[in-house]
């Protein structure tokens, strides 16, 4: 692969290294605690005990586990791949070290090295307001800028959140995504560990993003982080999550639940750059409640994994609330990205915009699955849905499953869906200027992703372009 396209971003230097060496390594670890494989009430009891949780949480976990056992596997989406998940062959809880650290120097060498290789401490120094790093089931490192802490910003791992702010957690936990929402939300509610708890007090503009990084290291690991973000009136925050895992031949499971509450006039942007290895099942439930004149934006980048099923949801509950979901998915060899978006307009004068961009390459498959619902009493709403799919190669596949349920006629709707191929004529145009065919194809793909990439902080845009370049290598076009 060549030089020129890197000019798209001068910082794109380290080309040609694959996932295996950049992210796919794993550490030989002595775990502080490593339970047995499989899931039952004893495992749930053990997790809750180790965390010294209040009884109500323990009970909730048990209830959730019963719901998980009762609910059948989804009968939609990629049922073939879903049914290949062997729930008995997964570790549900692994604790790498005894206590969380707030200083990188105190983090054990092998974990520090991992996060060093992933560039986390460096990013923290450069531009982040706070960092959380989760390794297997637990957050091993955590920090928040002093001034943010002084202003009353709470940024903790979920376990500490529950310990230190039990009242808030009890008030909101599971109210947006109850345990019986779906089978995987139930599983998360039963065995959740780690994740992020954020509360921003009223009237605060948190300028530097807060980031959490999730790393799976062990084979057959299940990571079940739980995130709750509450942004009070008039405040603003940008939260970023990144994820990677080693390459193994057997499967691991990542099943997160993310609940967000944007109170009046507030603004939340939640950015995800997930870059899972190809053996990860990524089945995540994300939902936000948006109150009067508040805005929530999900910026969701899905790379890697074997199967991703993820449909960030926005519930517009107050007048003037706005929601935006901008997602990209890249499906390469043997991958299925079943991603999408859900917006429900409960209140009048609310607006939403969904932009979904997917790239399928080789025999990869990208599906857009979306729901927009406008309730009867929600008048003068605006809805815009745009789905754009790019196919590379003859075997690539893209499907779109858009659903609209509009229960009143005072609504303005725009819907566009496009499927395109990297056109021969486009390639000829670019190659006739001296770019090789690979470079030309990459330029077209990066251009296709640009509406997404430009929304990312610069460091992440660079990283994403690099990831796409890796995915594009050896493309058969």
């Amino acid at each position, binding site marked *: 692969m*060549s*030089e*020129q*396209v890197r*000019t*798209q971003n001068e910082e794109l230097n380290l080309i040609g290294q694959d996932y295996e060496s950049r992210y796919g390594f794993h550490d030989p670890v002595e775990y502080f605690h490593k339970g047995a494989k499989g899931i039952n009430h004893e495992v749930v009891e053990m997790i809750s005990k180790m965390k010294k949780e209040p009884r109500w949480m323990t009970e909730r976990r048990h209830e959730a586990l019963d719901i998980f056992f009762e609910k059948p596997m989804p009968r939609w989406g990629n049922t073939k791949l879903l049914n290949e998940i062997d729930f008995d062959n997964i570790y549900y809880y692994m604790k790498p070290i005894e206590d969380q650290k707030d200083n990188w120097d105190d983090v054990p060498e092998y974990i520090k090295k991992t996060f060093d290789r992933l560039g986390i401490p460096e990013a923290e120094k450069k531009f982040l307001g706070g960092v959380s790093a989760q390794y297997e089931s637990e957050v091993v490192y955590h920090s928040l800028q002093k001034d943010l802490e002084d202003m009353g910003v709470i940024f903790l791992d979920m376990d500490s959140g529950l310990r230190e702010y039990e009242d808030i957690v009890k008030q909101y936990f599971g109210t947006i995504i109850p345990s019986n929402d779906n089978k995987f939300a139930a599983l998360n509610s039963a065995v959740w560990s780690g994740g992020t708890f954020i509360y921003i007090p009223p009237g605060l503009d948190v300028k530097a993003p807060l980031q959490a990084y999730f790393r799976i290291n062990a084979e057959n690991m299940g990571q079940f982080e739980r995130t709750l973000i509450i942004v009070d009136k008039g405040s603003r925050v940008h939260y970023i999550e990144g994820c990677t895992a080693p390459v193994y031949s057997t499967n691991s499971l990542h099943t997160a639940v993310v609940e967000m509450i944007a109170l009046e006039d507030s603004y939340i942007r939640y950015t995800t750059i997930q870059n899972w290895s190809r053996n990860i099942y990524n089945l995540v439930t994300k939902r936000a409640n948006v109150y009067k004149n508040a805005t929530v934006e999900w910026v969701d980048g899905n790379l890697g994994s074997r199967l991703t099923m993820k449909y960030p949801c926005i519930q517009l509950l107050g007048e003037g609330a706005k929601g935006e979901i901008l997602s990209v998915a890249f499906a390469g060899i043997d991958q299925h990205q079943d991603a999408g978006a859900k917006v429900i307009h409960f209140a009048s004068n609310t607006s939403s915009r969904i932009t979904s961009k997917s790239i399928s390459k080789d025999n990869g498959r990208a599906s857009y699955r979306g729901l927009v619902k406008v309730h009867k009493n929600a008048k003068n709403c605006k809805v815009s849905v745009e789905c754009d799919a790019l196919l590379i190669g003859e075997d690539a596949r893209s499907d779109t499953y858009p659903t609209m349920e509009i229960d009143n006629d005072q609504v303005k709707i725009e819907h566009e869906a496009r499927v395109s191929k990297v*056109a*021969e*004529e*486009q390639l*000829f*145009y*670019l*190659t*006739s*200027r*001296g*770019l*090789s*065919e690979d*470079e*030309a194809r990459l*330029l*077209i793909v*990066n*251009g*296709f*992703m*640009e*509406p997404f990439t430009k929304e990312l902080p610069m460091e992440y845009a660079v990283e994403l372009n690099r990831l796409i370049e890796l995915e594009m290598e050896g493309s058969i076009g």
Partner: protein
Amino acid sequence: MTERKPLFEFKNVHVKVDETEVVNGVSLKIYPGETHAIMGPNGSGKSSLANALMGNPSYTITKGEVYLDGENMLEMEPDKRSLAGLFLAFQYPLPIPGVTVANFLRSAVKARRAKDDDMSDFRKTLKAEMDGLSIDHPFAARYLNDGFSGGEKKRIEILQLAMLKPKMALLDETDSGLDIDALKIVAQGINRFHSDKNGILLITHYQRMLNYVKPDFVHVMMRGKFVKEGGPGLAMELEEKGYEWVEQETAQKVEV
């Protein structure tokens, strides 16, 4: 005296599109510093010839030879032809959404330089060339040909010509879709590029471009063949009498 070598030469070129032969045996030699024009009515095979010479995979050269500076173009992919110094200004440049004019040009310029070459002069050169073509600087940040007017696209093609400085420029209907002011600006751009080292092959339907970019030779193409050749006066004659006149003339020749 040493014999002058042609800069660009094609011999007996035949081109097929979807099993149909659209160019049946054309030959031409262009020497350094020369400007040639191919004129002809719609569907005469002019654009097909230009695309085939550049290596467009939809146009197959079934027979013939093409050389640039002694190098066999037919053995090269389009990118290699470009790096060897061949350039085609497209009749219908394609939009590349998400790729800015500046990034695209940077990639194309960099492809011509050594790996570790300093690119710090790039912006300055780009701005100067944009000024020359009366293109506003913010245009560099727009997506290539995405939502451009016909005239804007043609200017950007000539901007590429100016930035890439090929040895041999094939300009396919660069005058179409331009109003008279834009035509002058584009023509000036072409003339600035032109030197005694490089060559230009203008492909056009109309004579008006040739008022501003003076050809040394004019070739009339009809039904896939060059049917008449002459000096700059031929273009004027064509403008006056129309292509039917050539048609009648060639028809008579056949009868003779």
